[in-house]
């Protein structure tokens, strides 16, 4: 009963929000309360739907085959993630969405997107999977294109990628349908197991490439930064945390469940150089290059969108090792990343709500004015950088262990290079926003209201709790691994107990608190200390005041600028993207010239056509 409700509620929500769009200008409260109610209900139903795992439900019959949907462990995990983050984002938007009339359809499209995602995650046959995939990508386009014209241009970029991904998938669906005779996953699995190599390769390419495009893996990530960064900040949080992971869900579902791991491994030269190694290399590139591009960004949101690509690379790294630890790391990283990226972007939204800008060169010193936002971002960046005691560390530790012991040293090195890049760009983010001198124009900035603070506190608690007690999350992941046919991870409440050295986050955090207390004791043993104003500062004898600009924000990592200047501006992926677009336009122009506009050429075409047709038929006869 709950499973149907999971699909029905977003639809109803969409309908009502669609009708309420007119009221947004006069009183946005109506739409907001409706949205809050709707998403809270979805979250509640998602929690309760756990009981109905495994039962299949019949949907409408299309083209003679019944659309079936239902919950499995993997899909329930994703449904919970979707429902949770949507509810939190909506709570945040209650406070942050001031200019509601700029986004009349904000919640309507959000409902549509949730419907698409939940449908995708719960679909149990190929056709319903594809229908929900298309609905989701269209809904994502509609969600992105709201607000300023800049976001519409970026959404257009996303649309090209999403539609080409959708069409390749449609090709794959048709191919599999004709080859295996039906849409059910079971039939397809049996067919693929028996099929010869050629068929498998085409099926895998046609099905997996769209997921890589949606998950913004390295060569196909061009659309993500501008699309996510130009939409409204809370929407950036929502998109970065969950929207790109649908591609990963597809990957997990098809690689582990539908095609099965042994079929995937049949493609490739040797046990060490097969499809999974290709995925690993792609994942490593995805992890490293976007993270170092994030270093050069001047806008906070754009910096984080580059990170969402980078962290997507980590998840793919974990999954592509297909070992117990690796997949556990990948799956947990999806959850971890969702929590702390939402936390960071919410605090950026809080800063933007008060100061009106996210330009890292203009901000500074807001720690004294917005301490809660600072704390939120602090927890977030510790998680993003993967430093204990936050949860980001646990999943990264799994991924490193599996890569090193799995015999991929250089991929492990690439992962660590990405971590160093993350730490650098993450510190630049918190330094330029909260630390340094407070510009005089932000003197009256105050903390944001409790509505916006609530999600920040909740996420901080989640990031810390799952960091110290990773067992709570690992139990879900173990059940998923069993369902995917991988040996489940031997988890304890504090981490992992394995023969090759284990991890216990509880002990690490306990030791950290004790040593922190020792540090505090030493600190308070010293003399009295006095907090002084920011202008009472060493400036080689110069007198500081509010007119003296005394911040180091611009060009924060100048050495990297020197070294990677040319590479960054060459931006290989974006330039290939532009050239491709120009190529299609010029070819189109030449073809259009076929329609010359003079009647005599048309007559010539006519005669030529008849003659060629006759010749064609002659040799056909």
């Amino acid at each position, binding site marked *: 009963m709950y499973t149907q409700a999971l699909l029905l509620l977003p639809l109803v929500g969409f309908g009502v929000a669609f009708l309420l769009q007119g009221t947004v200008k006069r009183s946005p409260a109506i739409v907001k309360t409706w949205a809050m109610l709707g998403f809270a209900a979805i979250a509640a139903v998602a929690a309760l739907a756990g009981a109905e795992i495994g039962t299949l439900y019949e949907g409408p019959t299309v083209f003679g085959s019944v659309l079936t949907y239902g919950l499995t462990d993997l899909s329930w995990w994703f449904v919970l993630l979707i429902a949770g983050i949507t509810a939190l984002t909506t709570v945040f938007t209650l406070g942050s969405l001031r200019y509601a009339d700029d986004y009349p359809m904000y919640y309507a499209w959000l409902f549509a997107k949730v419907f698409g995602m939940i449908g995708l995650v719960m679909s149990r046959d190929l056709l319903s999977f594809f229908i929900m995939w298309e609905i989701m990508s269209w809904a994502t386009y509609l969600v992105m294109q709201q607000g300023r014209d800049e976001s519409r241009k970026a959404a257009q970029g996303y649309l090209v990628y999403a539609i080409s991904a959708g069409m390749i998938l449609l090709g794959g669906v048709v191919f599999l349908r004709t080859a295996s005779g039906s849409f059910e996953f079971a039939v397809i699995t049996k067919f693929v197991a028996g099929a010869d190599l050629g068929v498998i390769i085409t099926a895998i390419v046609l099905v997996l490439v769209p997921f890589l495009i949606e998950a913004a893996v390295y060569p196909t990530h061009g659309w993500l930064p501008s699309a996510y960064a130009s939409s409204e900040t809370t929407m950036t949080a929502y998109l970065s945390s969950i929207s790109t992971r649908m591609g990963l869900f597809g990957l997990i579902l098809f690689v582990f469940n539908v095609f099965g791991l042994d079929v995937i491994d049949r493609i490739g030269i040797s046990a060490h150089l097969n499809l999974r190694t290709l995925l690993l290399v792609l994942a490593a590139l995805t992890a490293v290059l976007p993270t170092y591009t994030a270093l050069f960004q001047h806008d906070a949101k754009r910096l984080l969108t580059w990170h969402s690509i980078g962290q997507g690379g980590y998840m793919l790294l974990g999954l592509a090792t297909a070992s117990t630890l690796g997949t556990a790391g990948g799956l947990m990283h999806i959850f971890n990343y969702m929590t702390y990226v939402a936390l960071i972007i919410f605090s950026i939204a809080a800063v933007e709500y008060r100061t009106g800008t996210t330009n890292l060169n203009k901000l500074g010193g807001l720690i004294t004015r917005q301490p809660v936002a600072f704390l939120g971002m602090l927890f977030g960046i510790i998680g993003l950088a993967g430093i204990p005691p936050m949860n980001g560390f646990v999943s990264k530790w799994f991924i490193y262990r599996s890569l090193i012991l799995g015999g991929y040293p250089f991929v492990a090195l690439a992962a660590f290079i990405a971590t160093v890049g993350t730490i650098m760009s993450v510190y630049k983010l918190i330094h330029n926003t909260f630390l340094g001198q407070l510009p005089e124009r932000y003197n009256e900035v105050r903390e944001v209201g409790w509505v916006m603070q609530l999600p920040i506190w909740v996420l901080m608690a989640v990031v810390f709790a799952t960091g110290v007690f990773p067992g709570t999350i690992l139990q879900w992941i173990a059940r998923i691994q069993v369902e995917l046919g991988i040996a489940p991870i031997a988890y304890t409440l504090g981490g992992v107990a394995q023969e090759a050295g284990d991890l216990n986050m509880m002990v690490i955090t306990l030791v950290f608190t004790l040593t922190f207390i020792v540090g505090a004791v030493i600190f308070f043993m010293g003399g*009295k200390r006095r907090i002084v*104003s920011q202008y*009472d500062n*060493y400036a080689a*004898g*110069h*007198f*500081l*005041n509010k007119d003296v600009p005394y911040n180091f924000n611009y060009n924060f990592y100048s050495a990297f600028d020197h070294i990677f200047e040319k590479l960054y501006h060459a931006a290989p992926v974006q330039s290939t993207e532009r050239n491709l677009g120009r190529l299609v336009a010029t070819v189109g122009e030449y073809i259009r010239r076929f329609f010359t506009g003079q009647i005599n050429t048309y007559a010539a075409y006519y005669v030529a056509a008849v003659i060629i047709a006759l010749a064609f038929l002659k040799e056909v006869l």
Partner: protein
Amino acid sequence: MSDKELTQRSAWETVLASLKKRSLWMLHYCTGCGAVELPPTMTSRFDMERFGIMPMVTPRQADILLITGYLSVKTLKRVILIYEQMQAPKYVVGFGSCTINGGMYWNSYATMKSLDRYLPVELYLAGCMPRPEAIISGFNSLIDRIDRGEANSWKDYYENYEFYRKNQEHTFGDIETHRSIADDAQYYGFVEVTK
């Protein structure tokens, strides 16, 4: 300097003083010609690091403020700012005759005649640029004074701040150092809380 400090020092303070004297970090404000005498004192020829004295870059980390020459009105403003940025206990060392009585520029309209009217000076090193031996003997006497607990001139700045402030104002008017010495004095308890 009230007499109480001189006589009744607890055993712990005595031990502490003997330890603290072994580490003095010096911020040399090289105005005038005095700076040229410091390299030989610091490097291998005389090596003042034997006594734990090390040149330091920022006032926050320095204990000794070595003013090595005459002070004009403009440089005095900077010296006051740096002095107030230093952490107590801090010792001003006047270096050369220019800081004692204006030295060669005794009749100039622009240079300060005696340093101690603007800052509590712990130690003067006489000489129209004293030689490294003089510097080191001066520092040794400073170390002995710290050991005996007599090097408390920095308290004088807090206790008689009005005197120093008036002289400073007389010279260059008001400066904005974003800090009030009177509040500091009461906060740290160098002066009995009047209000």
